[in-house]
């Protein structure tokens, strides 16, 4: 046993853990007081590290002053502004919307950083106490490492003191129990929320600066810094997003595990080293989630009721026909890369359609749809080809056999069921994070491994287009028409599902899992089924997506992409994930907006790509104001415009009949209600009072 090596790795691990702990406790502080999981936490840390570079290196201010400016002013201010402008509006919003808004904020902030600090210049932060070290035995410890560990310990003590000894800290914890009661006591929940976000941003900033100046070699790289802070999410999960002490324990486990896996496997298995080690935090995140005790089944809760029409079979068939016709016109008019871009957008649209039953109807969140898409593309490439020799080999059924599509659906659905089995009992946010961990792990350990889609030079990434014999899909135009047909068919199927008994069960599952259970249904089985179906549809979409270029690369199926699972989820929700038109728009947005910005950039002779990122962020942030998504917003306004009044409500998104139905027929709103209808009203109002959402 090499004790020196162990000691060295331990010190490195503890120093890294300290940074994770600082970042994770910031996440916990914001989550507990606002109930919103801040996906942008890592991006805030990254932005603050760059701001620190600007002040410290570019402007040459002394270290202490730079730290004071960034951590004492810029970071808290940023956090407070984010809370005031974005987070405050999200209190009654569904989980999917809150995730999309903060995820979009993350992308937006990354865009802002790219605009302000273009990556073509390399930057670095000086370490704190450069060159100063102490020796423990023959192990050399830098002052920076000691400082990092010391800061984490100090923060642990300060946070503990804040939350147990100060009234403000106690009130921050009290907000978790009941926001209203804090106000009734005389506390200001609104101020507490702002304060917690300011504090959270400060902690993220400190973590970002320590990472960027530290010895683990992240440096000032936008993506890397953002991602490493995400590792801290796992630590926060160990504390169930509530407990600061457990969060520190979680950080220690992750930091040490990461250093030990790096340190002790360097010579053994190359695959393990390059593909597994980087995702160790995510593996631990997954484990932490699976160890979580099962939460109580949630009862009914009223979220913003959004009115969405469900088209009849006839209507959906007609519109699908229109879509195919439109696809044909586009195929005739557009050529070259624009045509394939539109085709890819449509294929991504099919993948986004897979989120409609899962997220739109059942309210479950999956951040790994592109993983399933990748599995679908993999199945297609292996089943419907004859030549591939890399990795798993080929079934060799024949080039472009439609059986490949079936295999894509079945394999993805099976993997979906497999991953759902342990994760499905998790609710809401935890399921979302589990799927994120799955996406990152699969991306690194499966797709990037080289055995699946090769490493670029081989033909392993080749994905055939399906071949139906009589009509050839070899031209890009024909393939676009074919994609339109598939999109239309899937949309018709999804809508048929929505109108049927299974669709009703999905809505019930979203509105009240407890009610589903008490009525004798199994929330778990329903979730399993819809998760699996959704994975299958994503697999089908992935196989078709691969066919557009007849080739795929591992990066396409990663969490961040492009296109990536996160963007697929965000834009599906932005488009309107409870409708089938939303995915159509979302898919095109995802593909066409970057192309447009690149085109505009070449015209203006500047690189506009970062602005596309910022725009993407703004789109998601705009969702915070129109939680139904673009399609719902546009169609509501359009109908109001056409008819000159607000549209007739055919269906309430929330369960139960529209409130207006309780009124005496024909009587204007606010008129007396018949005695016999009072009881129904009681039930309705009691519900609103309990959930606290009735107050406009």
């Amino acid at each position, binding site marked *: 046993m090499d004790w020196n090596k162990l000691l060295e790795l331990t010190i490195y691990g503890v120093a890294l853990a300290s940074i994770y702990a600082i970042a994770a406790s910031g996440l916990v502080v914001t989550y507990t007081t606002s109930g919103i999981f801040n996906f942008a936490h890592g991006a805030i840390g990254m932005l603050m590290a760059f701001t620190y570079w600007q002040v410290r290196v570019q402007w040459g201010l002394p270290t202490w002053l730079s730290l004071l400016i960034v951590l004492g002013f810029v970071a808290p201010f940023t956090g407070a502004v984010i809370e005031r402008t974005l987070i405050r509006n999200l209190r009654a919003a569904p989980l999917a919307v809150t995730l999309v808004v903060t995820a979009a904020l993350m992308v937006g902030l990354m865009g802002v950083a790219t605009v302000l600090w273009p990556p073509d210049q390399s930057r670095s932060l000086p370490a704190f106490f450069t060159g100063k070290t102490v020796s423990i035995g023959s192990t050399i410890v830098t002052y920076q490492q000691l400082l990092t560990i010391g800061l984490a310990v100090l923060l642990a003590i300060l946070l503990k003191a804040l939350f147990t000894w100060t009234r403000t800290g106690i009130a921050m914890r009290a907000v*978790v129990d009941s926001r209203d009661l804090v106000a009734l006591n005389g*506390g200001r929940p609104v101020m507490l929320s702002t304060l917690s976000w300011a504090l959270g941003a400060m902690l993220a900033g400190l973590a970002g600066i320590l990472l960027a100046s530290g010895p683990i070699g992240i440096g000032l790289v936008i993506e890397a810094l953002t991602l490493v802070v995400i590792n801290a999410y796992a630590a926060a999960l160990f504390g169930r997003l509530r407990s600061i002490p457990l969060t520190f324990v979680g950080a220690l486990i992750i930091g040490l595990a990461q250093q030990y896996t790096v340190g002790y496997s360097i010579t053994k298995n190359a695959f393990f080293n390059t593909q597994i080690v980087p995702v160790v935090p995510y593996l631990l995140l997954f484990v932490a989630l699976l160890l979580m005790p099962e939460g109580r089944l949630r009862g009914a809760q009223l979220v913003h009721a959004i009115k969405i029409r469900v088209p009849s079979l006839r209507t959906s068939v007609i519109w699908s026909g229109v879509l195919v016709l439109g696809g044909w016109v586009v195929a005739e008019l557009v050529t070259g890369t624009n045509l394939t871009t539109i085709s890819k957008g449509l294929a991504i649209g099919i993948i986004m359609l897979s989120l409609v039953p899962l997220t739109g109807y059942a309210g479950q969140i999956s951040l790994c749809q592109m993983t399933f898409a990748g599995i679908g593309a993999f199945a297609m490439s292996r089943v419907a080809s004859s030549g591939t020799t890399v990795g798993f080999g080929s079934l060799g059924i024949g080039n472009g056999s439609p059986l490949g599509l079936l295999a894509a659906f079945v394999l993805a659905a099976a993997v979906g069921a497999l991953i759902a089995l342990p994760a499905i009992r998790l609710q809401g946010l935890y399921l979302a994070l589990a799927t994120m961990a799955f996406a990152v792990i699969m991306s690194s350990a499966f797709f990037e491994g080289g055995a699946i889609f090769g490493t670029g030079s081989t033909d392993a990434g080749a994905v055939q287009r399906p071949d139906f014999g009589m009509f050839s899909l070899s031209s890009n135009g024909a393939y676009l028409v074919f994609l339109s047909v598939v999109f239309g068919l899937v949309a018709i199927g999804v809508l048929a599902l929505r109108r049927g008994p299974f669709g009703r069960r999905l809505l019930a599952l979203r509105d009240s899992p407890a009610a589903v259970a008490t009525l004798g249904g199994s929330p778990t089985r329903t979730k399993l089924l819809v998760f699996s179906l959704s994975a299958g549809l994503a697999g089908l979409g992935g196989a078709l997506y691969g066919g557009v270029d007849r080739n795929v690369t591992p990066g396409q199926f990663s969490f961040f992409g492009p296109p990536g699972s996160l963007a697929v989820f965000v834009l599906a929700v932005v488009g309107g994930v409870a409708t089938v038109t939303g995915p159509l728009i979302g898919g095109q947005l995802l593909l066409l907006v970057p192309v447009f910005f690149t085109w505009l950039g070449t015209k203006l002779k500047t690189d506009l790509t970062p602005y596309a990122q910022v725009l993407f962020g703004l789109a998601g942030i705009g969702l915070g104001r129109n939680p139904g998504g673009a399609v719902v917003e546009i169609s509501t306004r359009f109908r109001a415009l056409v008819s000159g009044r607000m549209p007739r409500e055919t269906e309430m998104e929330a369960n139960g009949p529209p*409130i207006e139905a309780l009124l005496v027929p024909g009587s204007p*709103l606010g008129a007396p209600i018949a005695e016999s209808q009072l009881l129904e009203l*009681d039930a309705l109002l009691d519900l609103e*009072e309990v959930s606290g959402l009735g107050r406009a």
Partner: protein
Amino acid sequence: MTGPTPGSVARAGTVGGGPERPPVLELRQVRAAYGRIEVLRGVDLAVPEGAVVALLGRNGAGKTTTLNVISGQLPATHGSVMLAGRRVDGASADQLARLGVCTVPEGRGVFPNLTVHENLRLFTYRGVALDQVEAETFARFPRLQARRKQLAGTLSGGEQQMLALARALTTRPAVLLLDELSMGLAPIVVEELYAQVAKIATEGISVLVVEQFARTVLAVADLAAVMHHGAIHHVGRPDAIMDQLSDAYLGNLS
């Protein structure tokens, strides 16, 4: 901020027509709505200084909504809320709490994940020192002293309501709003709690109480108001209300 003065207890008297000093709490033609459903349709109500006023009515009559408007949790769409003669509608819940409107909401007046001590700590927003809050609370409810470090969520229902009531007892509010103090509690505990409410009133604190146990509350009330359909229909002395109104109209008399 008007400190209530013991002794100037205005017993009985007509509601709304205050003698020399304005009522501690007064609602004039208050309307309020949840979304587009109007729940309060012109509520007129006055709580004289040091009086216990019981607000009765069947489910959905608007009792809790009335309390929500007074406590600042729901904005009134029309009308005014006066505290000691000054308009306060439009003030936020925390401002009103600091002004001395003490609300004990239905069924959940404590923070379950905070200890008893930490719950008491949050009483100090009104301006009374923590030491004093603790001393007075434990003097009234000795049972809570033994549970000082215990999470409030692990207390019995009665103890939780005691803790909630302790805020009213120790922070010297101008007016106390109680919503369904009895919810889910044994009748004997309810009697105990209302004995404390009566005591609070003798100290000059005005109380507005919403309660299903009409008999219990009418025993300690100075005035009773019956709500129906979002408006006050009858106001009178408790015995008169008891006699005049049929059980059916009141819903469930205990």
